[in-house]
């Protein structure tokens, strides 16, 4: 099986393979241009007579559960990332697979973290053929250097749901690590020593996988309430000593930034939103977990409080800052995709207005609508942006694949997408002639806010008009690029090989870009 074949130019002007890991894929056609037909994928029919009447699906350990689930060569194994860098189960799964001599697996996580570095040995020994999911840090480096047997496939959170729903990825065994579960398989993320808030990223896996294993360190008698994951989808339940490392589940980036430069960017972003009339009574926004995004949320809160306004909802990654706003009455609802700290977990457990969501409600391409298009403003990060407003969130300017897409692509569909980013990092300009990898097409990216000026996408004449008589430092994106190059110099292009190591999927399942192998020893 070839890693990739049939290189073609897609609608974004990028060369991408139309054959990936032996399967046909469709090159990107443009935003909203690909409308597939047919019926959704469905898992095998189950019959309740095959399951115990007493509801007890407990098996002795993870190994036995995997054997019972029929683990064999070439299967697709899925996991979720609600435990972030505190996930201990994924590594165990592949240690067991290795021990059983199973080969050629496809790992389909909703995201990977530096704690998954041990997986590299199983990529080397052939237990795992490839990862389809975010490739962070060490795994990304490994993939960038062309060392992964199969081709990496990166999807957004919404794109992952899409791929599961339309059968592009058929999960053989889903392993759902859960902070709380009962013997029937009902599970949630709000209770237990490894509480992580919710389990939304595992929802599609529970519904569509052929076999589902729930693993918990907090087994409660039936019923486990709330049942964020329904036991009716679950085959086996495994009790372990530890399902995740609590202190690593809390994301390290959930403090507001102390950097004066980033605070300035946050302040400018909030001022821009105010000047453009985006902040109003009843508006909605998405705040990420990065330090700059959190600070923007603080500025939004200040404006709401001062004017006696209230936001209708915050789309989150939640932590203590949006929770404070909810409890202060500055917002009606938090629609939460993942909780980043214990305050977020507590709020989700106690407050009925703190809602757990899944990529289905927020991002899914095959839904009859989703709420990403209804959010008034989202603030997102990026590693690079180009003069056509195309943005990159997965590779660095030196060509290395170091980050996942997360919900980033899906969020671009909001009414106003703002990227607050520094103009350069150390000596590396963030605004370029052409991004190393396109993750988001420029037509969906409206505003770039840097510490040295704000560039508005010329397509957004309305925004340009609204801020034209303010004292905001509005510049063209070309001016910003020139300013960065004046300070840093013009960087050389990385010398990349002719070999694709990973592809970036668009939210509809088409291939928007390819990641090329970096030359080692550079």
């Amino acid at each position, binding site marked *: 099986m070839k890693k990739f074949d049939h290189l073609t130019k897609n609608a974004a002007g990028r060369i991408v393979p139309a054959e990936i890991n032996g399967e046909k894929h469709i090159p990107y056609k443009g935003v909203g241009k690909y409308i597939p037909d047919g019926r959704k994928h469905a898992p095998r029919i189950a019959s309740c007579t095959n399951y115990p009447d007493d509801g007890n699906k407990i098996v002795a350990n993870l190994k036995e559960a995997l054997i019972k689930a029929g683990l064999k060569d070439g299967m697709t194994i899925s996991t979720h990332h609600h435990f972030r860098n505190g996930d201990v189960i994924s590594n165990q799964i592949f240690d067991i697979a290795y021990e059983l001599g199973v080969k050629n697996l496809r790992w389909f996580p909703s995201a990977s973290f530096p704690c998954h570095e041990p997986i590299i040995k199983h990529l080397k020994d052939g237990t795992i053929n490839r990862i389809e999911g975010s490739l962070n840090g060490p795994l990304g480096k490994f993939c960038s250097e062309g060392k992964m047997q199969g081709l990496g496939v990166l999807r957004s959170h919404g794109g992952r749901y899409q791929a599961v729903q339309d059968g592009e990825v058929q999960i053989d065994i889903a392993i759902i690590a859960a902070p709380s579960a009962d013997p029937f398989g009902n599970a949630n993320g709000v209770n237990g020593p490894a509480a992580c808030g919710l389990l939304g990223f595992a929802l599609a896996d529970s519904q569509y996988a052929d076999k589902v294993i729930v693993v918990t360190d907090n087994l409660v008698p039936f019923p486990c309430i709330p049942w964020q994951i329904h036991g009716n989808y679950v085959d086996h339940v495994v009790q372990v000593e530890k399902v995740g490392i609590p202190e690593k589940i809390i994301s390290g980036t959930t403090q507001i930034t102390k950097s*004066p430069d980033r605070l300035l960017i946050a302040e400018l972003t909030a001022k821009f939103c105010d000047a453009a009339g985006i902040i109003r009574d009843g508006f909605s926004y998405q705040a990420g977990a990065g330090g700059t995004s959190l600070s923007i949320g603080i500025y939004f809160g200040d404006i709401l409080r001062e004017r006696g306004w209230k936001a209708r909802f915050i789309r989150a990654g939640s932590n203590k800052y949006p929770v404070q706003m909810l409890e202060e009455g500055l917002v009606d609802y938090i629609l939460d995709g993942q909780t980043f700290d214990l305050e977020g977990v507590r709020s989700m457990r106690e407050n009925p207005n703190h809602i757990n969501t899944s990529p289905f409600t927020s991002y899914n391409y095959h839904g009859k609508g989703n709420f990403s298009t209804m959010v008034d403003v989202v603030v997102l990060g990026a590693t690079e942006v180009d003069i056509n407003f195309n943005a990159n969130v997965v590779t660095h300017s030196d060509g290395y694949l170091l980050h996942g897409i997360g919900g980033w692509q899906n969020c671009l569909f909001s009414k106003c997408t703002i990227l607050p980013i520094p103009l350069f990092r150390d000596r590396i300009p963030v605004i370029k002639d052409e991004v190393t990898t396109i993750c988001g097409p420029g037509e969906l990216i409206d505003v770039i806010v840097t510490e040295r000026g704000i560039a508005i996408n010329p397509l957004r004449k309305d925004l340009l008009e609204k801020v034209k008589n303010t004292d905001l430092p509005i510049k063209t994106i070309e001016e910003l690029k020139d300013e960065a190059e004046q300070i840093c110099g013009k960087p*050389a292009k990385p010398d990349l090989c002719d070999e694709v190591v990973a592809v970036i999927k668009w939210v509809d399942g088409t291939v928007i870009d390819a990641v090329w192998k970096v030359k080692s020893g550079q």
Partner: protein
Amino acid sequence: MSEKIIKKATAGNKGQGIRSDCFISMELTGTGGIDIQLSSKVNILFGKDIKNQITEILTFFNIENANIVIEDSGALTYVIAARMEAVIKKLIDSDKEYLYPVIDENKYQTSGDSNRFSRLYLPGNTPHLIINAGIHKPNGIILDLEDAVAHEKKFEACFLVRNALRNLNFYGAERMVRINQLPRGLEDLEYIVPHNVNLILLPKCESADEIKQINHRIDEIKKTKQIKGDIWLMPIIESARGVINIYEIAEAASNVVALAIGLEDFTADLGTRRTEEGTESFFARSKLVIACRAAGIQAIDSVYSDVADMEGLKNTILRSKAMGFNGMGCIHPRQIAVIHENYAPDEQEIEKAKKICNAFKEAEEKGLGVVSLGTKMIDPPVVKRAQHTIDLAIATGKLTKNWRDEV
């Protein structure tokens, strides 16, 4: 060029938390040509540029045989050049200076009575803190060669500060350098006087004689290098002796445009502790304000050191302003906005100034020699002061330029 006895030297910084800097070690060898070992976090993007730059600098200083190891954490061009020149000059004697042209953005002068609400202190040998200083819009940026630079780093810091004055965009802020105490401070001057400095801060100043020494040296350098343009002085009073001599220092030379007080050192000199209410320094600060007014120059207050306490900063500024200070130092960019907001004239002051300026205009139009407001006669200094308040209000965005046209 002549070689010194030592054959190996280093300059710059490396290690955890170091960004936008580089560490260079260089060894002069008799033969074997040039060998450059570069490790850089921006190697793929700028590796070739960096090697070319190093080679160019070596050629400039006629160095033909050397081993050079560079550990780069994303240093900008002028930083690399400063580190290279420092390491080279530790190894050889040379009068040559490797300089890039002064960037156009920095080709501005300041005036003696420029607005000096805020001046941001930055350590002169820490590139990553310097790079973005200007975007926070302080009135002045101080590159510090004194307390913020370790003794063994003072030499290399001079090159970095020199290059920054020429090639770092200050975004309109006054380019200030705090030199070392005399006599070392006199040596610092040759790195800054020909290189675009606007104002020099003289720490721990105790006498008019120090001002005279500095001005003498400045004039010498200006003459040899044919430098035009004003260079202002802001002596810092930081000792009991300095306080006693404040007025003679204020009047020591026409380019002394402001006096600042440094309370950490001052309270240490008194053998007491700095307190929030500042009783221990009240006399000294008040004396400084009075001396400055008498000499017709600006009085600048000490820094507020708790960068997290914006409320405390605000209260300190309001007291400082009430005493007559025109501005203060700051050690964190987030303090700048608070300083500008609170040293700027408040609404009451602006209203009063508007009335006075209007009365003056009216009197002028009517050809009256005497200005009066209601039943009060207004003296010319009061009018001048009111005009100054209006100017400040406009500069800080509290009043529009055409305020007379607005109702």
